[in-house]
């Protein structure tokens, strides 16, 4: 129990350093009474269609992955599977006192953030090969075609303006890339004869890896846009909507290693003379590399950031209704991420406490259930949420803390 608590704390704390728009998104239609607002939010979210969270947690916290864990995950796999991790934190400062461009409705927004977004599309055979070895493919062929991996870690600093009344905002961000890794397997298989006297490995693929030894491997530009609008529901009420685009931009990597592999490597049994004349009983790894005709080119690369798009029907903070619904969809500029639809119900338990539940479908997994709670005081707001509570293939935690003064 202590360990679980410790783990939750650890994730929570590490996520305090990360942020994303937590569900539900709330619209405060009041003109801010305070001049300054700082919000810190963090997101830790990993999802998969197939890999059990027991395995993922073993990678995060350490531990032994036993046969039962591997078997249950393997049985969950289809031909094509997805896995993704979204870790981020954001700090946003809003100044409602300043009147930018001599417009009394335009305030200042300054923000910073750290992001790590990784995704994986892979075949069942790739999972089985990694966790069981090739022993289970005797007399069979393991296919890896179509598998791809993408990971980008970057930081940003941005400045922009906000509409003090609608809460819409726009910011231009300077991006510093810490790490980039991308790989695509166009065609690949491993054939193993029934008598295990020959192996044939085909690999046709390409990859890019940031190489520079400096802390920042490249720089870029991106924009964040938070556009809010309302539609009339009845004489007294409006329905508020939000369209968010975050990290829409690109970065240029100064030096990246571009790998192109296109070859077949066959491993047959040794002859006795080979053993007598050889220093090593295993094939020289350099030989295999040469067989696969690896080409490595170092050059600059332009990469798109994993921009997020989200459209949401917001919860009205000032509504008198005890229950409010919310819905929307979210997407990322990423092959592995399937557009996610979500919807939920918000319950105003008291003036200082709201709780709610939601369901979502898509993303890196399928159906997910989530809950949230938020505590509101005069000068600060604390929200804790999870978009993925009961899943066997993922976890999610979101923390957001806002202070106004």
């Amino acid at each position, binding site marked *: 129990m202590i360990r679980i608590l410790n783990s939750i*704390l650890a994730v929570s704390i590490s996520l305090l350093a990360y942020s994303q728009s937590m569900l539900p998104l709330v619209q405060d239609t009041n003109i801010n009474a305070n001049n300054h607002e700082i919000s810190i939010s963090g997101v830790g979210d990993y999802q998969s269609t197939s890999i059990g969270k027991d395995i993922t947690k073993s990678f995060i*916290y*350490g531990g032994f992955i036993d046969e039962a864990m591997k078997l249950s995950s393997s049985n969950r796999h289809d031909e094509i599977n997805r896995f993704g991790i979204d870790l981020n934190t954001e700090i946003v400062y809003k100044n409602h006192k300043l009147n930018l461009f001599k417009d009394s409705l335009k305030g200042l927004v300054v923000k910073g953030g750290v992001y790590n977004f990784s995704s994986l599309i892979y075949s069942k055979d790739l999972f089985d090969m990694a966790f069981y070895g090739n022993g289970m493919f005797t007399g069979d062929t393991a296919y890896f075609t179509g598998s791809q991996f993408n990971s980008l870690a970057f930081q940003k600093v941005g400045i922009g303006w906000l509409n003090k009344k609608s809460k819409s905002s726009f910011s231009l961000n300077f991006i510093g890339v810490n790490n980039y890794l991308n790989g695509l397997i166009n065609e690949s298989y491993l054939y193993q004869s029934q008598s295990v006297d020959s192996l044939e490995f085909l690999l046709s693929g390409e990859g890019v890896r940031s190489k520079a030894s400096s802390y920042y491997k490249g720089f870029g530009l991106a924009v964040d846009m938070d556009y809010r609008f309302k539609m009339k529901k009845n004489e007294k009420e409006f329905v508020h909507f939000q369209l968010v685009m975050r990290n829409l931009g690109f970065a240029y990597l100064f030096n990246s290693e571009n790998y192109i592999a296109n070859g077949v490597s066959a491993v047959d*049994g*040794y002859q006795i003379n080979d053993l007598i004349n050889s220093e090593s009983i295993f094939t020289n790894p350099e030989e295999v590399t040469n067989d696969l005709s690896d080409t490595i080119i170092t050059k600059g690369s332009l990469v798109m950031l994993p921009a997020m798009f989200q459209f949401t029907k917001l919860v009205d903070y000032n509504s008198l209704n005890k229950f409010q619904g919310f819905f929307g969809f979210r997407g990322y500029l990423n092959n592995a991420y399937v557009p996610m639809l979500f919807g939920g119900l918000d319950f105003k338990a008291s003036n200082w406490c709201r709780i709610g539940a939601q369901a979502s479908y898509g993303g890196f997994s399928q159906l997910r259930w989530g809950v949230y709670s938020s505590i509101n005081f005069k000068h600060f707001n604390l929200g804790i949420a999870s978009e993925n509570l009961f899943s066997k293939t993922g976890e999610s935690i979101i923390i957001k803390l806002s202070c106004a*003064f």
Partner: protein
Amino acid sequence: MKVITPCLKIFIVLIFLSIISSCKKEATQWKTDWSIPFVTDTISLLNLHNDSTLDNFTSSDYLVSLERELLDISLKDFFFIPDTTISQTFSPTIGIGSVPPGFTFYNEVEAHELSIPNAQLKKIIVSSGQIDLKIFNPIETSAYYTIQMPGVEKDGITLEHTFFINAGTTDIPAVANEQIVLDGYTLDLRGEDITGSVNISGYNILQTSLSIMSDPNGDAVPISMSDVFEVEAKIQNLSIDYAQGYFGEQVFSDTTTFDIPILNQIISGNIDLDEVPIDIEITNGTKIPFSTEITMLENTNSFDETVWLSSALIGNPQLIAPATGAWSTLVPSNHLIGIDNSNSNMTAYIENLGHTHRLGFEVKMNPFGSATGSFNEIFPNSRLKIKLKSEFPLGLESNGLTIADTVAVNLSAEIVKDLIKAEEATLNITAVNSFPISGSLSLRFLDNAGNVLHNISDIETIESSLLGFMDSEENLMKNESVIEVTLTNEVLNDFELIEYVVLVGELNTTPGVIQNIPSNAYLFLRSYLKVKTLNSIP
């Protein structure tokens, strides 16, 4: 400020807990099973088929048909004619005064002895060679030098060459360089006696005749006693097709050593063999009498035990008659020294399983001295050969014959450092055996000091083909065995300490029966490694 301060306090506490929590992360680990092709090969005696060692055609079982050449010498090995320089000079002993044009003032024959070690040659036929001439003219008119070599003939014509040389002076004679090619010439090396007839008892003598004539178109010039007329002849690169004479009592002796390395790895057991005869064949293609003596034949096995072949034929010279005929009708004489169980301890000699054999022999030319006169003859195709031959069925009875080999190794259970470590490895071997011999294997793992760290001896046996089935297509009895050699975690954990692996193989046949080895028998091996790995990500 009062509002912000509590937030910061919470953050500081959470960050502190986060650091403590992250320090406690243990490695992520899981196990995988990998199969890797290892050895697929066929062990047979095929590489001995074309080496005059094994006969796989004559019968359904292998015959050992061994033939090794111990000695093969030809004409050039019997004697060597070194490069020789001969010189013929002439100086007037009395003052001649003036030499008119076209006057021959010197004409003499000289005999020169060739230095040919160990041989008294009377006649040779040169296959290739040359004479480089250097001629000096000290008089102040040009001259014609004619050099003739009596007894040196080609197609019945005596070798004769005339050279023109410009005028010189007493102090600075004119010099001319010429070359005479001797290819195909017959050299009578007997010389002349005092009567001018051929000296039938002479040998190694080469004659030259030099005449000098002043230029018929020149002037009359003075000649004095200080003038030296000289011809230098350098006989070079002489190669001989035929030689006649007496080649002396030359002796060719040697001790030949031949090894069978695998027999040095026998550590116990023995074999029984049927009779193994050995013939030593001497072929004499020269018209020279020889005597041949096998001085010793011995072998030493891996236990440092030496067995000598004991026979009346050892140490007893055998006379080898000269060849008959000549040139294209030359018929070598053959002499066979047969050694078998009837006249030696041959079976005991072979069953000693010696890894190093030493054969001593001595060949003596003209064993009766010069009694044969001067009629030793060697032709271009004359050779003296000594061969060792043996032919017998390849069959044996093996009684726990154990062969051990120590291999230095550099092992590590870590396949990828700090990430993938082998926990258990199993070598799965499928063997198809068509030899009527069973074999079992054991492994010993030694550290640097030679201490046995692990011993794997409970490995199944590769069974004899006689316990299998008849393959009518290949006409061979075959038996398939599947054996596994497992390296446990304990062995793998000591991989870093293991410096040597001793491979021990024990061979057995049906007791009391000499098992013939079928022609084209083989042992097919197909194996793969099954490795259980523990993968760790820190």
